[in-house]
């Protein structure tokens, strides 16, 4: 029963992500509206997948990835970054910080579901791509 944490300051966006991933068997969803809330949630309960927006108040997605990858117990948590056209420059930074996948809005339900499935079912894919560059 995968536990998925969906983080976005837009409620509609969170619901869209949940709607896309809901068909995945027995997944359970928790929503967080800020990067800070996400970090708080991650400290309270184990999760199997983190879906993260880049652009949020206080601390953005990249900072969340950096923080998460600095925690021993979260080092291998699969992370999908969801963001908006124009943020492509952040892609390298996010991947370097240890994100596993990168989706650009508008994405299709199938594409994000495919990414989630790959990360949940093949743990080896979930390793950060570049250990050395971890923040």
């Amino acid at each position, binding site marked *: 029963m995968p536990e998925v944490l969906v983080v976005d300051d837009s409620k509609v966006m969170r619901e869209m992500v949940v709607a896309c991933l809901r068909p*995945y068997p027995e997944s359970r969803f928790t929503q967080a509206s800020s990067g*800070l809330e996400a970090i*708080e949630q991650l*400290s309270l309960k184990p999760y199997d997948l983190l879906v993260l927006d880049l652009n949020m108040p*206080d*601390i953005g997605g990249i900072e969340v990835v950096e923080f998460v990858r*600095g925690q021993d117990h979260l080092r291998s948590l699969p992370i999908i970054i969801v963001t908006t056209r124009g943020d492509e420059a952040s892609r390298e930074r996010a991947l370097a910080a240890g994100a596993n996948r990168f989706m650009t809005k508008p994405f299709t339900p199938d594409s994000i579901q495919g990414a989630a499935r790959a990360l949940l079912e093949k743990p080896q894919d979930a390793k950060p791509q570049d250990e050395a560059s971890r923040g």
Partner: protein
Amino acid sequence: MTTSVEFAEFLPAYLAEVDELLASAQRDLLAVEEAVRRGAAQPRAVRELFRALHTIKGLSAMVDVEPIVSVAHWMETSLRLADQAGGRLPESSVEPLVEGLRAIEQRVRQLGAGKPASPAPANLLERLEALGPHVLEAAPPQPRRVVLDAEAAFASKLAPSERGQLEAGLAAGQRAVRLDFVPSAGRAAQGLTINTVRERVAKLGDIVKVLPLSGAAAGGASLAFALLLITSSDDAALLDAVGGAPATVRSLEADAPEEAAVPLAPLPPTAVPVAVAEEEMEEPEVRRGGGLLRVEVSRLDEAMEWLAALVVNRSRLTRAVTALTATGAPTRELTAILQENGRQLRDLRSAILRLRMVRVGDVLERLPLLVRGLRRTTGKSVRLELDVGDAELDKAVADRLLPALVHLVRNAVDHALELPEERVAAGKPPEGLVHLGCHARSSGQLEITLRDDGRGVDAKAVAKAANAPVPESVDGLLDLLCRPGLSTRQEATSTSGRGMGMDIVRRIVVEQLGGELRMETRKGAGTTFTLRVPLTVTLVDAIVFECAGLKYAVAVGTVEELIDVDALRVVRPAGADGLGLVERRGAAVPLLSLERLLGRTAPAQAGVSRGAKALIVRQRGEPVAFAVDRLLGQQEIVLRPLEDPLVRVPGVAGATDLGDGKPTLVLDLGALGAAHGVRRKGAARPGEWVS
């Protein structure tokens, strides 16, 4: 695994969220403009504006609204640069940004009305695109005057603009502090999460940055959040906002004499686990202060409908108990329960009505933007002061009231306020003032005052325009002003138009909402309008009946009893005066023909039709019966005062829609009888709800 997710299904939620984002973007843009005029930076508002546009762009891409994506994209691009430049925008950029927000708003409206969004105007996109280079020019180097404690402030994690914000706060004599909050499951169960903590702390100061900490930096806890903020509050208030220990506060000022010597003080290691352990023992409970929930109005109406059904049932129960009491049965306890039940229903009703309340401040959100536009079109210098506090209003009332307020504000700027040079010549400050204040009154009404310090209403000019004698009182003057079509201007001004005037305002306030409109004015000193409107609309539990082929409603609370009227009970049939007598429990009661009172039939008919009923209403303690043709049932109605003053007659409380889409008159039988010289009505009024 394929999905059948249709993002188009999210359109209503998308529109609602974009609406909210636009409202906050407008506020932020006004704050930016204000700062631009003072030549200052407004880093927080610029960043919020940037984020709002970024979110709008992403959402619009998901639901495939390309015109909004384009506008938002170019606005976002220049705002990103402005954010990087420390929150500065050139003055010339404000107008295109305002237009951009308006263009998005228009398209949101189109989508809301089920139409496709029209393409983004090409020249607007060009102007927005051209903003980028200008924005970079607006960024001057910032002088540093205060040094931050680099270690406490995590200097390396702060953007230059964030550092600048902290330093500017210190330079302005405020405190720059770091407040550490340690989250836990126990605290979350008490409603203390980083989100609620953030909200509370934001009330005490300007949060510049929040950083998550772990390990040594978190002082022994597995996770801590460091909130860096500018504030005038003291340590005790700040600690209180985050739930006290294990939270800590420290100054960020490098050379602060009292605290600078304290390095990253580790938290007392023993206190933390104990406190957390205790808290974790508690059952998790529903989060308090859990923020806001968007609910469709139709769901609230549904709850109201169920409540109405309960109320109808209670009326039946009351009558049944009354009947039981009349037989001599011991009903004391039953009556007590019934009373308690009535109180509970009233409480439930006010609880549901409270759900429909919106903050007046949110309703008036658009006014600053309106005044901004008026400033530009009229060339007048205006300051709008909003003093609305926490007052709340039923959404149905708020939706009707806003156009009236918009109209009054428009009039104030357009007609009442003088041009700056005229004001100076009259010994006034060049900037005119429009003040809007409101507070809830204990009578269940909201009082709104709209004051300007303009030229005052010229009674002679109004009289001349209305072709009427100069009124003696201010009320008379207001009556003249509210004449349909009156305008003291010969030419239509571009903002207020001509002819669409105070009559609309009065109609909304008095006729639609059943409120009051008053005016005070002094030549040369200004005008104040005072509006009193009910906080909620009137819901009435009503009996619906038919009379001479038409449906009518009457408030249950005003009707004492329903009786059958057959030939046997009629003591004296209605004579030429329409007044008869009917027997009730051995006493004769005046019987009025409602048909006749309403002028529905010629007085030719005599006698009583089969199966007729009568409603008994008390007037000054004396029962009076009103004959009707047929009872149709009982239901809760929304009482709407009649809008057309010509149809306003004594005895008609208002109109309602019974669900068939046709207006149905709601009668005030007491007043109707009184108007026809029967007797004056008693205290009963429609609108009495659970009696």
